[in-house]
């Protein structure tokens, strides 16, 4: 019987299709990625079944850390510039144009007004190292109330989002809700993480 010759096939595979897919995915992930802004404190939000997404603009965020420190953030650079100017006027601190610009790029902060100027003038890598002691929010010295009120003056329809750690004690939450109510904010949001809806 004659020997059957098997034609030798090349081992190289056409990788074009795979490359196409790979780069398509790469492009997708590159565009979809939002890098987390450096936050001064890590907060584990409680989970909920609520599915309302959080808006990107027109929002101020009050962060409450596990150790009851309160942080504040206003979204939107132009509003932040107005906000710091107003706060400066209120507390008789003269912020220079340069400082205002610098403040506009700081995300979350938690410092009393008298330490803020010094903090702004630090380099960004030094800012991370500093342990911020939180914005005073008790009834004696409620700077948070001023932040909230002045933010509302810069932007008419600003919303308030409270991002609390799941282990924060209730009194501090109550204190903040009361502050909000005093400043005529009766609608606000709690930031939560998504949870699979429980089936009853």
């Amino acid at each position: 019987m004659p020997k059957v010759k098997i034609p030798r096939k090349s081992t190289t595979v056409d990788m074009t299709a795979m490359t196409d897919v790979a780069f398509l995915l790469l492009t997708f992930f590159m565009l979809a990625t939002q890098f987390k802004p450096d936050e001064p404190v890590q907060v584990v939000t409680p989970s909920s079944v609520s599915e309302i997404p959080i808006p990107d603009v027109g929002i101020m965020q009050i962060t409450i850390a596990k150790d009851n420190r309160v942080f504040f953030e206003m979204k939107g650079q132009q509003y932040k510039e107005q906000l710091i100017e107003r706060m400066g006027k209120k507390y008789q601190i003269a912020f220079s144009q340069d400082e205002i610009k610098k403040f506009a790029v700081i995300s979350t902060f938690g410092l009393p007004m008298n330490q803020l100027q010094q903090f702004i003038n630090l380099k960004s890598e030094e800012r991370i190292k500093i342990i911020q002691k939180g914005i005073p929010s008790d009834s004696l010295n409620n700077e948070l109330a001023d932040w909230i009120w002045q933010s509302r003056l810069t932007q008419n329809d600003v919303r308030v989002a409270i991002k609390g750690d799941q282990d924060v004690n209730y009194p501090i939450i109550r204190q903040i809700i009361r502050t909000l109510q005093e400043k005529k904010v009766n609608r606000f949001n709690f930031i939560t993480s998504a949870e699979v809806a429980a089936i009853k």
Partner: protein
Amino acid sequence: MAELEGGGGGHKKGGKKPHGKKLSTRVDFTPMVDLGFLLITFFMLTTSMNKPKTMEINMPVQEGEKTPVPASQTMSIILTENDKVVYYFRDSKTGDPLTPQITDYSAGGIRSAILKENTSRNPNIDSIEIYKKMYRSNLIDEKQMKKHISFVKEFKDGLIVIIKADDKAKFKNLVDILDEMLICNVGRYAIVNLEEPEKELIKQAQTTLAATNP
């Protein structure tokens, strides 16, 4: 002869010149693909797909008239320490609190209590699920569904939940109970401050719990 040939076929490739080895146009893609996948892996790991969600809270306006509610229609829920929750109803005639019950946030705990109360007081509560199903099968649009659901939820004899929390409760507990309001379709609820006599009720519930399982 040879020269003639060379001259004649000038435009011809090669000609008399020694044939250059024909190079393949294929390029080895392997390193590029490697790099591509490496970057994909990096971006996949750094991307956080689930954006945080929010839940909306509406507090009553502080100054302004308070709407009186019949005591018998209310269910008071007090959040307390160790992830426990105390709830009680009020007597329909005197308005005095009835024996407080203590339970937890599990599905068989506070949720079943709220669900039981809500269904017994609101006869139309089951229709919420039907409206949701109708929306899913595109029989009604979202606006209609929301209108119908809020109509059912606002039923005037329905359950009113009053949420209170003592100083040892955690933020998580508050979010959990607000979640239950969503799950159990409770339309009317409010977060209010804890009053002194209710601290006694918590103690009472805690001691009964301790007595039942020592």
